[in-house]
């Protein structure tokens, strides 16, 4: 592995050091994209703990991540160093029970059968000034 690319090295290190790590837009408590929000909601419904990396602060994070994972979109969930998938795959796996299996956990009894629909992404609502009144 080359060490001339510190961002890529940091990402690889983060993936190898965390059993479950989610690269997403925004933070779990405030996702900035519906797909990231949905993925967070699925993980949270299973009550699993995970590391999260916000890719938004620097576009190079996303670029280097995609180069490592050969996966073009965000979010990306890794378990034990392996790419599990993005929102679509995580959602499908939640509903089939494979996600809990991959995470090595038993879903809590209150976990919904269908993947939970995420609340709206955390961007502040547009304030439109009404000048017609």
């Amino acid at each position: 592995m080359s060490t001339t690319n510190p961002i890529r090295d940091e990402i690889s290190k983060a993936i190898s050091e965390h059993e479950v790590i989610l690269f997403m837009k925004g933070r779990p408590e405030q996702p900035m994209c519906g797909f990231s929000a949905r993925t967070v909601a699925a993980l949270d419904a299973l009550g699993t703990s995970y590391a999260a990396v916000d890719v938004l602060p620097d576009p190079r994070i996303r670029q280097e991540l995609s180069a490592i994972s050969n996966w073009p979109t965000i979010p990306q969930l890794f378990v034990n160093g392996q790419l599990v998938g993005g929102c679509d795959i995580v959602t499908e796996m939640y509903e089939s029970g494979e996600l809990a299996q991959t995470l090595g956990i038993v879903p809590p009894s209150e976990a919904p059968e269908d993947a939970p629909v995420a609340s709206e992404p955390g961007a502040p609502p547009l304030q439109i000034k009404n000048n017609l009144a």
Partner: protein
Amino acid sequence: MPSTDDLKQRIEAAIPGANAQVIDLTGGGDHFRAEVVAPEFAGMSRIEQHRRVYAVFGTDIGGPIHALSLVTKAE
């Protein structure tokens, strides 16, 4: 701005025997959902199936196509 027909045609042209149903999620021409059925997906993992479809669009994903949600099946 890509249309649902563009996406459908590109997928079906690139993946032999594929059938693609594409919808525009927002009406804005940049967030799409595609259901793709293709014989060659048999024996491929979901990750590989999705990579195959993403590869059809290369750097258009994240460019003109902001989001492409996928459901893939072998049949």
